[in-house]
């Protein structure tokens, strides 16, 4: 929230032209009701679909979608890939806490394999979505991933996307000690932040790892579409 507002402030954007759209979940409360701009707090999963209508009808609105991984990538996954395919001028910021936090800590489409959750007591059996590669594959012009432990890079990326046109996507790895951390043996926010700091590697370093080691770490940075 802080970094997004700082970016808006640095760019001296007119708050009257800003529209924040969010879905349902913890992250959906980042803009609504806290931001002094137009906010649209929508149905679970449908933030991008609502934003599509507002942006198409009034292209002057700088339309920023802020929501969570479950909202944007699971129940709303279809809208995410289609908005990316259309390269619609939406700025999507996805807070990824790797769990369904608001509903009590159930496994998400972004939970790493082996995650202990309220619905995967023996560990999550599936691999998570790689959201950045997903949206790039669907046609997005820009995708980046940073953890909240990388505030400078994250703010630079947000500022960059606010000046770009077309569909942009920023995945923000964020800690949820209450629902995610405590079940993985990371009881406190500092422990979770330390885990993120340790796991997150710049993309170039991550690429140099052997494939088996890559799964244990998280690639961060700006992603580009691989050549066809």
């Amino acid at each position, binding site marked *: 929230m802080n970094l997004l507002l700082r970016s808006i402030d640095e760019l001296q954007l007119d*708050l*009257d*032209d800003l*529209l924040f*759209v969010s879905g349902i979940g913890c992250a959906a409360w980042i803009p*609504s*009701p806290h931001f*002094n*701009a*137009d*906010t*649209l*707090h*929508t*149905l679970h*999963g*449908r933030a991008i*679909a*609502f*934003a*599509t*209508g*507002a*942006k*198409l*009808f*009034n292209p*002057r*609105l700088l339309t920023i979608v802020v929501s969570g991984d479950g909202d944007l990538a699971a129940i709303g996954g*279809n*809208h995410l890939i*289609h908005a990316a395919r259309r390269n619609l001028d939406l700025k999507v910021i996805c807070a990824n806490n790797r769990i369904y936090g608001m509903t009590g800590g159930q496994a998400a489409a972004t939970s790493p394999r082996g995650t202990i959750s309220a619905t995967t007591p023996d560990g999550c059996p599936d691999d998570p979505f790689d959201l950045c590669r997903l949206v790039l594959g669907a046609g997005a012009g820009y995708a980046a991933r940073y953890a909240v432990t990388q505030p400078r890079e994250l703010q630079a990326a947000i500022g960059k996307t606010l000046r770009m046109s077309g569909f942009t996507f920023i995945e923000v790895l964020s800690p949820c000690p209450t629902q995610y951390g405590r079940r993985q043996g990371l009881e406190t926010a500092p422990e979770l932040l330390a885990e993120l700091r340790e796991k997150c590697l710049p993309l170039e370093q991550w690429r140099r790892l052997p494939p088996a080691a890559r799964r244990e770490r998280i690639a961060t940075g700006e992603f580009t579409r691989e050549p066809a």
Partner: protein
Amino acid sequence: MSVTETTVSSPLPPGKYYFSGNEALAEGAIAAGCNYYAGYPITPSSEIMERLAARFAGLEGRVFIQMEDELASICSVIGAVWAGAKGMTATSGPGFSLMQEAIGYAALTETPLVLADIQRAGPGTGQATKVASGDLMQAKWGSHGDYQPIALCPWSVQEMYELTITAFNLAETYRVPVFLLGEEAVGHLQERLDIPAANRVARRHYQPGAPPFGHPDPAGVPSMPAFGQGEKLLVTGSTHDEYGFRRTDDPAAHARLVARLNDKILQHRDRIVSTRSYRLEDAEIAIVAYGFTARSAWLAVDELRRAGKKAGLLRLRTIWPFAAAEIAALGSSVRQIFVPVPPADRRPDHLPGNHHPGGTGAVAWPATWKNTCARAPTAPRSVPAAATAS
């Protein structure tokens, strides 16, 4: 209601046209000022979006988009409406089912929109190209919680045009989703359409700074701003106060909001409900029908009259809010009331009278009546007229 109504010239030159019902509906939407359409193809409604795609391309300031599914279609309409658009979508049974959650969102956020449901036989995938009117109850109770939609039932190509304009006007006046419950048969029917020189078109009331979700009148319709006007709008599908702040723990706030959402329709039902009478002046037998079925009922009235029976037709142009008072009045003037429905929907407990508060369930059910209704039933099960008066 402080809605603004103006006379707007018809975008199509006035005159006689030969159109399908779905094409007429699309032209009605254009005439009503619809400037945002989002939809997903589905039989038997697709001609609406096809015509709007072609017609919007030649008109200024109108946005058409084919979305990835019905959920996205109606949600993008709601987003566009809050950006200032007059928005609509069209679908049929399976898509209408998918849209129900967003319909509740539109009801709670008081978002005016028009949804054309060109009905097909259900449940499930059913029969995509066959006529039915089985979405009647879903239109009323499809989304969870307590709200009052408005639903119109056009019976002709002419009414597909006219009632679409009415639907937009009602949506703008009361800030509600309005349904056009056409049937496959009226959607695909081809007949004459008279386009007038101009239409009366309503525009939502906006008073800068006024609360967008509250009104001093407990049955009032609030001012509706749009994004980008500097109002710093808070639009949420959660229970909220008059400025949009979430009040999810306050029972009084919820009761106040939901009461107004219902009362703004129910207390204005006399202005919303629309019926048409045919040969009812001296009738002893009345048929109550709506939509395409009313065409058969109209023929049946003439045939009964030729046979010396004093028959008449009460045709419901609005099905929600229900014309309970009008039917009750009819019940005190005729001996018998018949309600024909298409064979696909022939469960007696589908009938509004059986569900409406104060309804007696006392409507006749002609068990042998066919959809075509070429001949009046010889031995209808009927009820005493008194029983139909509530």
